[in-house]
């Protein structure tokens, strides 16, 4: 069953140069118990998307169109009080930097209990017992619950944050780069912990990251975002195995894979466009080796192949040669951006 549905969502930030169209017509859904990964480079709008769902956009940001349906109710139409009822109880979050998300002057126990008190009528004792239980769940010593955030290491803080996100057994967790600040061992521990706990309370998750490997291992479906729009969306296995958007193909080659010796790394030349005055047509065109005139003039159509939704004019060329050549640097030197940078 569909839990969260985002339809043609537009989010703008007002700036002195005009509105920045950070999220521009994004549509996707998350089913119950499903893990969705959102990948893309900085500035592609992935964090804005999460902030819009949580209703925590910056002051100059607002939803300029579209809807966000949670169990059929539109979050964008809700009052603050209605939203607060749902937040943490149904939709919770794991922020990127636990250091900044935790209040330094309260103990961990007080902070987690506060979330419980806001939604449930329980005694101090019960809330406290719940904190102990949560700490054990995430692999922390319950005795440490009375410590302050600064007494925790980075990995422990992130685990405490996960405990807090799970406190009310939410239906969906939005995790924004949950492990980016941590080293590999800690990342592995945290990801394993999250997926085990998710199975236990059967919650969905939307995980936002630029680390393609993390998404490959934890998500059922993946959305690849580029410059505020969806470039490609589909089952994780298909998107990693046989992507049809030139951007997804390029992203795959830009990552060193520990299991691949002598891999030739490929970088996609150029930068994403400014989103104050986004270019017409396909936003990736400048950086795309397949770009033709039609890409600069018309919005890319939605093409479905093997369960993937791809927004590109030239999906038909991917299988006829492009995929094989995509791990060669020459391929990417054909792009307009590369010609402009080098000469």
């Amino acid at each position, binding site marked *: 069953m569909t839990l969260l549905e985002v339809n043609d969502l537009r989010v703008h930030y007002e700036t002195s140069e005009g509105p920045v169209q950070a999220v521009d017509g994004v549509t996707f859904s998350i089913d119950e118990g499903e893990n969705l990964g959102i990948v893309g480079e900085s500035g592609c709008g992935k964090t804005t998307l999460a902030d819009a769902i949580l209703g925590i956009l910056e002051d100059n940001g607002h939803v300029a169109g579209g809807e966000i349906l949670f169990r059929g109710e539109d979050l964008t139409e809700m009052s603050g009080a209605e939203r607060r009822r749902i937040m943490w109880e149904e939709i919770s979050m794991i922020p990127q930097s636990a250091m900044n998300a935790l209040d330094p002057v309260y103990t961990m126990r007080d902070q987690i209990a506060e979330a419980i008190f806001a939604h449930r009528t329980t005694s101090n004792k019960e809330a406290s017992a719940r904190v102990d239980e949560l700490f054990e769940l995430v692999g922390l010593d319950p005795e440490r619950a009375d410590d302050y955030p600064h007494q925790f290491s980075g990995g422990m803080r992130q685990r405490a944050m996960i405990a807090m996100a799970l406190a009310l057994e939410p239906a969906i967790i939005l995790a924004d780069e949950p492990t980016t600040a941590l080293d*590999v061992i800690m990342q592995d521990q945290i990801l394993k912990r999250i997926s085990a706990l998710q199975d236990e309370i059967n919650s969905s998750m939307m995980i936002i990251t630029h680390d*393609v490997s993390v998404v*490959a291992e934890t998500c059922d479906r993946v959305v690849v975002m580029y410059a505020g729009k969806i470039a490609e969306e589909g089952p994780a296995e298909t998107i*990693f195995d046989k992507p049809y958007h030139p951007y997804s193909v390029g992203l795959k080659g830009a990552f*060193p894979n520990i299991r691949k010796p002598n891999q030739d790394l490929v*970088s996609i030349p150029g930068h994403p466009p400014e989103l104050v005055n986004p270019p017409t047509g396909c936003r990736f065109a400048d950086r795309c080796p397949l770009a033709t005139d039609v890409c600069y003039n018309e919005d890319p159509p939605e093409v479905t192949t093997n369960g993937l939704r791809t927004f590109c004019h030239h999906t038909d060329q991917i299988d006829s040669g492009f995929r094989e050549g995509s791990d060669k640097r020459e391929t990417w030197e054909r792009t307009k951006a590369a010609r402009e940078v080098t000469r």
Partner: protein
Amino acid sequence: MSDRVSLGKEGSDEPLLRVEEMEKFFQVDTGLVNSITNKIRGDGPDFVHAVDGVSFELAEGETLGLAGESGCGKTTTGMTLAKLYEPTGGTVHYKGEDITQLEGAKLKAFRRSAQMIFQDPFESLNPKRTVYDTLVEPLQIHDIGNQTARVARSLEFAGLTPPEKFFDRYPHELSGGQRQRVAIARALVLDPDFIVADEPVSMLDVSLRAGVLQLLERMNDEYGLSVVYISHDLSLLRHMCDKLAIMYLGRIVEYGPTDRIIEDPKHPYTKALVNAVPVPDPKLGRERVELQGEVGDAINIPSGCRFKDRCEDYIGEVCDTVSPPLEVKTEIDSDRQVGCHLYESADGYDPYTDIPTSDSSVTEDSASADD
């Protein structure tokens, strides 16, 4: 350049860098009360054993990766190699000269020859200086001519073209990737022989990463540099390095050719580290060894093997009491070294003879005695 003091002797077969039992301890400042109680108890001050006996060699043109979790001492090792810290023990020989003893012209020559690239280009560049000022300063210090041409060439090499366009820019006018390129250009402007790169791409976005990595690869190839890369990202180190040293709590636990260490890790910690790296392919399942807990306390170093509490293959008393030396093992290739009691020493060292007979004494450094 010919009238400059150069380091090292001509024609010697010294490796570029020879590190022997290098140590770097930091004194812990625990406050007045603690220092008084320590004095009453007759204890000395506490030390963080950040780097605790590290030995390796780096040949000219070779690239070495230092890997390990946060707090394993990899950054301290790198900073000590670049002489940003003074080692508290052991020696570091650069082109045959002990860098701790360098003075005057020789020290200046070393500073010219060894450079560092830092992790965060947002903090490593002075916000009040233009790109040109940043790059020309080392040339002024070392009194090298042709400054504008050198700065331009360095920027161009780093992919900032046309270089003149970047001369008057301030760091805040540059993107993260461009900033890291400026940092790399600054390191290269003096034509160094040796570079320490501390997590050179971990602060950069995915799309920029591959570009900067390509630049670093070209730097190795074209300048023939020797580079020490510091990172916890083994996929990256596999891509960049000839050799790999896996560090744990201030010590190297495994050392050897990169490909072989990653394909066939021997030390239980290396196994866990390799298996913790996610793979960007959902169909490739990996064997996930759960490594519990965190790196131990670097102040009160445990006796015996430092990894024993988290080790899957713990074999008892010998792990508890005898610190395993990093050495060649009988069943492992002779160009690899492993510091673990699971494997038999190739030069006949028997750690069981070092197990203390009474329960009172603890052999903290039996290892070094046997090297």
